């Protein structure tokens, strides 16, 4: 680096270099990053367990390490929130990379709880048919690398192997999800995106049954996900070129014109083209993760093909993390651009709600139907994002917490209804389930009613919060569309309930497996959260309201 060229920067060129200003040692606030660090530590411990613990003891050790790690991380989140980091002491940790503020902590707490419940469903090994030699069979391939149906795989299955790597993979995905909504700059946002995606791509390919569908879903998810993250990254590069910084707060300052003048920046940032294209591409990448309409094509295929416990975890947790990141990007980095992004988001939200609700009606597979329902819910959440006020943020936070537990519970119930070929996901097979096993049918009906937004369930509280925030933010037509779409969506949820309770059961219909305590707990927690957040939502609203201010 030569400092001589600085004296004559009359012609600004790529070949001239600036003086190397001294770089100061970074200050890392480890205590404020502790939730993320604990989860990552548990994941690395999980890898060591995989390497050194004998195969027989791995499952128990992994489950213990995972649950202890999650408990520790949740304790860290609660500790940070209790010492005021959610409100008065909120700040940017690690040189501005991680924002420790209300929305971060609320979403991190939600994500850790969701993962804990998801891990219970993932750890279930009592549903598959078992033999004397292999007493425990889980939902994952005995040996992921073996060709389905080959001798290798049969040998691995006979030996009782299982892919216990799913536990550390889940934790790695969770660590990315914890970083994602808390990212204070675009670099951290990108790393969070990739760390949460890469393990999920792998976990999609691990199903024990219907491997071909599972692997197909992984390929589709991976190719589309990599494509979307390339767009995200190109947008990041353009925004960096526009603002000269990757900080979300710094970008906002350049947009408003409050930033310190910079000759080079003035030479490149005179047009808004970089800002508009860059912002649009980043938002496109986030909308892909969310599953909003022009970028939703992967959702039904991946939800159907992936192993059902993974689908539940992915559907619940990815949505929480991605909406957190979308909120932070739009509210911290681009609030002054809202006259540009709001019309686009209006269109996206309307399309998402309408397509999700209408196409779901034609579905005959339970997992696909739930996938389209998740698309419709992404649309409802977007109306809260569009609201553009503090109430909108708190409504989206509440909705995410409520929705994720309903989703987890619903997919956990899907794992129980089985026939000889594995899970019986075709809707016609669910006829008359209510007569055969009333408890399972009633629980599933509860989750469906929550999806539909019937009062006294968490779905109603969430939709009410989101729609009232949107109406207050001046998006009344959007609320009308949202309510209409909810009505259409309610039709197909009710149709499933009618099938379960009033159709004649088939003679060769599926049986309902009796779950072990693991899946039982997961479903019970999901149902309890659905009812509690539906009947007594006020404390959760207050919590979300307190946590709804972003640090800049």
């Amino acid at each position, binding site marked *: 680096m030569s400092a001589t060229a600085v004296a004559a920067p009359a012609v600004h*060129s*790529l*070949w001239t*270099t*600036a003086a190397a*200003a001294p770089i100061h040692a970074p200050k890392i606030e480890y205590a404020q990053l502790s939730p993320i660090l604990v989860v990552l530590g548990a994941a690395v411990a999980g890898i060591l367990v995989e390497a050194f613990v004998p195969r027989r003891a791995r499952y128990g050790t992994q489950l213990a390490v995972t649950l202890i790690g999650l408990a520790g991380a949740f304790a860290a989140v609660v500790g940070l929130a209790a010492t005021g980091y959610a409100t008065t002491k909120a700040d940017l940790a690690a040189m501005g990379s991680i924002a420790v503020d209300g929305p971060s902590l609320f979403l991190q707490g939600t994500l850790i709880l969701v993962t804990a419940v998801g891990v219970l469903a993932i750890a279930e090994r009592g549903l*598959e048919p078992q033999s004397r030699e292999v007493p425990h069979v889980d939902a994952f391939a*005995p040996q992921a*690398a*073996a*060709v389905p*149906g*080959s*001798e*290798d*795989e049969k040998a691995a*299955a006979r030996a009782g192997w299982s892919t216990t790597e799913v536990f550390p993979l889940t934790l790695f995905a969770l660590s990315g999800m914890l970083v994602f909504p808390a990212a204070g700059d675009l*670099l951290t946002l*990108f*790393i969070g995106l*990739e760390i949460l995606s890469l393990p999920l*791509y*792998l976990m999609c390919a691990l199903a024990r*049954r219907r*491997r071909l*569908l599972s*692997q*197909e*879903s992984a*390929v*589709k998810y*991976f*190719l589309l996900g*990599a*494509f979307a993250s*390339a*767009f995200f*990254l*190109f947008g990041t*590069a353009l925004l*960096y*070129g526009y603002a*000269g910084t*990757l900080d979300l707060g710094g970008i906002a300052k350049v947009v408003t014109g409050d930033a310190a003048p910079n000759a*080079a*920046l003035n030479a*490149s940032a005179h047009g808004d083209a970089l800002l508009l294209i860059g912002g649009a591409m980043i938002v496109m990448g986030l909308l892909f993760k969310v599953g909003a309409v022009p970028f939703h094509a992967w959702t*039904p*295929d991946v939800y*159907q*093909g992936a192993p059902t416990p993974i689908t539940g975890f992915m559907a619940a947790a990815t949505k929480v993390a991605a909406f957190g990141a979308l909120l932070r990007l739009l509210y911290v980095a681009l609030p002054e651009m809202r006259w540009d992004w709001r019309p686009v988001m209006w269109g996206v939200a309307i399309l998402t709600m309408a397509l999700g609700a209408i*196409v779901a009606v*034609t579905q*005959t597979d339970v997992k*696909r139907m739930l996938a389209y329902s998740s698309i419709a819910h992404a649309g409802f959440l977007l109306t809260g994002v569009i609201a553009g006020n503090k109430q909108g943020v708190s409504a989206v936070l509440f909705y995410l917490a409520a929705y994720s537990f309903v989703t987890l519970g619903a997919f956990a119930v899907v794992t129980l209804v089985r*026939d*000889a*070929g*594995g899970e019986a996901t*075709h809707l016609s097979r669910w006829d008359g389930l209510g007569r055969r096993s009333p408890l399972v049918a009633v629980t599933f009906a509860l989750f469906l009613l929550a999806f539909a937004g019937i009062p006294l369930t968490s779905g109603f509280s969430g939709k009410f919060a989101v729609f009232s925030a949107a109406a207050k933010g001046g998006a009344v037509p959007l609320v009308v569309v949202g309510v209409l779409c909810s009505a259409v969506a309610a039709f197909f949820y009710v149709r499933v309930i009618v099938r379960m309770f009033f159709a004649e059961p088939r003679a060769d219909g599926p049986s309902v497996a009796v779950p072990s305590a693991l899946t039982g707990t997961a479903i019970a927690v999901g149902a309890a959260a659905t009812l509690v957040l539906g009947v007594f939502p006020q404390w959760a609203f207050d919590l979300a309201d307190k946590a709804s201010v972003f640090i800049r």
Partner: protein
Amino acid sequence: MHLLYPVVLSALLFCTGVYGVLARRNAVLVLMAVELMLNAVNLNLVAFDVWLRDTLHAGQALTLFTVTIAAAEIGLGLAIVLLLYRRRGTSSVDRLDELADRPDPPHPDQGAGPDPDADQDADPDARPAPDATSDDQPRKAAA
């Protein structure tokens, strides 16, 4: 040199990558096209970094992370594509059509196989690889 040249070059590279993803039918080639897109981003970041004289070199730092993550991504992607190839004998993305919206799904009533570990896909396209016992033998592609 003006900033315009590298930025336009990177935009062209990125568009080539997008075209590749959309036009290629082989999953490996699609992966390569995605890599091209990521490298276009790297070029862009480095050019902006130098142009803006960023003392913290945020652009270059992000480039390093992009390179690392691209490596991880390609490794993982190849692994997933290989899994599929071994079972199907093809890595064409056009033939991934088991999962799709259709009026009636292909197997509404899954065959009741007595062996719980047997794979249940009745897929006409799928052909198990000729020698399924050892994974690492070189073998012919499907015609």
